[in-house]
């Protein structure tokens, strides 16, 4: 039984592979599109996102501290989500993307401020997405200076402060992971996500509709191949193709932007494979819904729009309104971009990204089941 199933999947996968290789235009598209996109998207779209998730590490507390935190909150750049107890906790919050910023109030901050010294106050920022964090990081120093002014001894407060740096407290901003704040680095994971979404969904979206249009579906359906076998056979060859595309994207990005290569390859391979699979399954699902190849392609483009706009690729996720974030959470691309940013740019490991991988796995299961429910084993 299992052997026959395997033989049938093998038959369909082999046939798809041959057809794919024989289709010159598609092959060209598969190779050229990633390279072109990587080059074109090296430029970023600028925005000024607000309410970025921020954690606070309080090693001191007092009126000046409160004033600073209130000032940060009032600026609308920072959304104070809670406190972390240690530097290690702060690190993991950043690495897992729970916070884009960690503000550290050092020990003795209040006392040294009152004594007229210039105690440091630290802002750790996740600079992997500079578009998201640079405006807020830039606003940090003026906000702190403004907030601590009443707590400084002696000097009367000036009416206008434009050059706030070093005035009272000494705010220090650490750009973590991507010290140069280069957008190109950040764009690579997003591009990988968007290109794979587009090409993989398209490949399977036409899988059944093309057979229907060419009339070959009748032979396939008259054969004893079962729905799950057809689905597997039509999906597996494209996983290989998707992995090939991933290599092209990473290699061209590496050449063009000098992306640091400090990642956990296993974690990356798992994330990419899961992501490719979920997109292939979504495409296959479309092909069970569509009547024609054209319709299937239209569905694919409909699905790709939110994947580009709401996944954190085009606009920083943290800056999106709640309703858009809710949609974004249902998109595989969102989870994938978070994961790949963490792996490629923050040296995150499987331990850090497992929630996202779990989400991708869940989406695979959902679309596989949905496809099998929709799949018709007859021509009616």
């Amino acid at each position, binding site marked *: 039984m299992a052997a026959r199933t395997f033989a049938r999947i093998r*038959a369909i996968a082999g*046939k798809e592979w041959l057809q794919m290789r024989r289709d010159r235009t598609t092959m060209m598209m598969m190779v050229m599109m990633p390279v072109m996109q990587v080059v074109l998207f090296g430029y970023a779209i600028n925005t000024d996102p607000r309410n970025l998730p921020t954690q606070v590490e309080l090693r001191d507390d007092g009126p000046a501290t409160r004033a600073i935190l209130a000032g940060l909150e009032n600026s609308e750049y920072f959304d104070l989500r809670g406190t972390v107890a240690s530097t290690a906790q702060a690190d993991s919050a950043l690495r897992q993307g729970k916070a884009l910023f960690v503000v550290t109030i050092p020990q003795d901050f209040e006392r040294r401020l009152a004594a007229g010294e210039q105690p440091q106050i630290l802002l750790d920022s996740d600079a992997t997405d500079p578009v998201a964090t640079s405006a807020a990081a830039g606003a940090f120093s003026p906000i702190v200076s403004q907030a601590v002014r009443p707590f400084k001894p002696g000097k009367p407060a000036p009416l206008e402060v434009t050059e706030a740096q070093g005035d009272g407290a000494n705010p220090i901003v650490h750009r973590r992971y991507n010290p140069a704040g280069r957008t190109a680095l950040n764009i690579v994971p997003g591009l990988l996500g968007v290109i794979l979404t587009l090409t993989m969904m398209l490949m399977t979206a036409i899988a059944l509709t093309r057979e229907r249009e060419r009339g*070959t*579906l009748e032979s396939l359906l008259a054969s004893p191949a079962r729905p799950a076998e057809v689905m597997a056979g039509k999906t597996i060859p494209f996983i290989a193709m998707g992995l090939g595309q991933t290599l092209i994207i990473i290699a061209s990005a590496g050449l063009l932007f000098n992306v640091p290569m400090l990642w956990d390859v296993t974690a990356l391979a798992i994330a990419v494979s899961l992501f490719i699979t979920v997109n292939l399954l979504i495409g296959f699902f479309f092909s069970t819904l569509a009547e024609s190849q054209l319709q299937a392609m239209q569905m694919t483009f409909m699905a790709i729009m939110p994947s580009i706009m709401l996944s954190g690729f085009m606009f920083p996720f943290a800056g999106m309104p709640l309703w858009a974030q809710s949609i974004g959470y249902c998109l595989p691309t969102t989870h994938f971009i978070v994961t790949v940013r963490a792996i490629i740019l923050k040296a995150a490991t499987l331990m850090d990204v497992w929630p996202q991988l779990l989400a991708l796995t869940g989406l695979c299961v959902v679309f596989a089941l949905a496809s099998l429910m929709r799949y018709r084993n007859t*021509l009616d």
Partner: protein
Amino acid sequence: MSDVAIDVQGLTKSFGSKRVVNDFSITVPRGAIYGFLGPNGSGKTTTIRMLCGLLTADAGRGTCLGFDIMAEQSRIKERVGYMTQKFSLYGDLTIRENVRFFARLHGRAPLETVVDEVLETFDLTSRADQQAGQLSGGWKQRLALATATLNKPDLLLLDEPTAGVDPKARRDFWDRIRAMARSGVTTLVSTHYMDEAVQCDFINFIAYGNKLIDAPSAGLAREVGIHTVRIKGEGVSAVYDALEDLPGVEQRARFGSAIHVSGKDEAALLQAAQQTCDDHGVSWEAIDTGLEDAFIY
């Protein structure tokens, strides 16, 4: 194993509001070649698809090779070979790749040996590496028959298999069908060629979703009680016109330089022929009603 390959009753199928097959029943004995005739659009393809589990009937019940056509479609698909009316193999794959694909789907082993054998059997070896989409009708037809028989079926469903192929290819094709029938394969074949209908053991004629005739092909015309007169000679065209509306004349058809006139009332038919031919000075004779007369009728 019962000695009936197909046994269905009351098959009905509509597309939208259009009823395409209406209360259709047949019984096909094992090993028979069963001819399935009818004009275009009469529901032959739809019926065949219902038999092999590709369409679900709206009403009716029955079995194909002992398996329920409504519930055991996947069992039927394993034992039936279906050759579609429209070429439905992969045009961008070669002959060999198509054969290999179906051999794998049916779990045939050792794969390459089976593929080579099948290519040889169906005379496909010389163009085995040519893409199927570029083949001519006869080659496509042999390839389609080759893939339809790769699961060594007990029942072959052939939907207008010889449409658009030359006479020699048609003869070869029928030789193959008869050889398979001798080895015990039941064959149901739809066609609109009368000379092919003659080759069948049984004839089933449907029109507009309704079954008209279901009988052994021998003595079919007698069974339906149609009589025919052939009229030949100068001026048959005038005779053709003159015969219109005469009592006993129910059908007229031109066959080359002759015309065939058919009707159920023998006496009236003969009298009409006699009278008209005398008037126009042409000769006539009563002949056995051929299948062609019966089917036009």
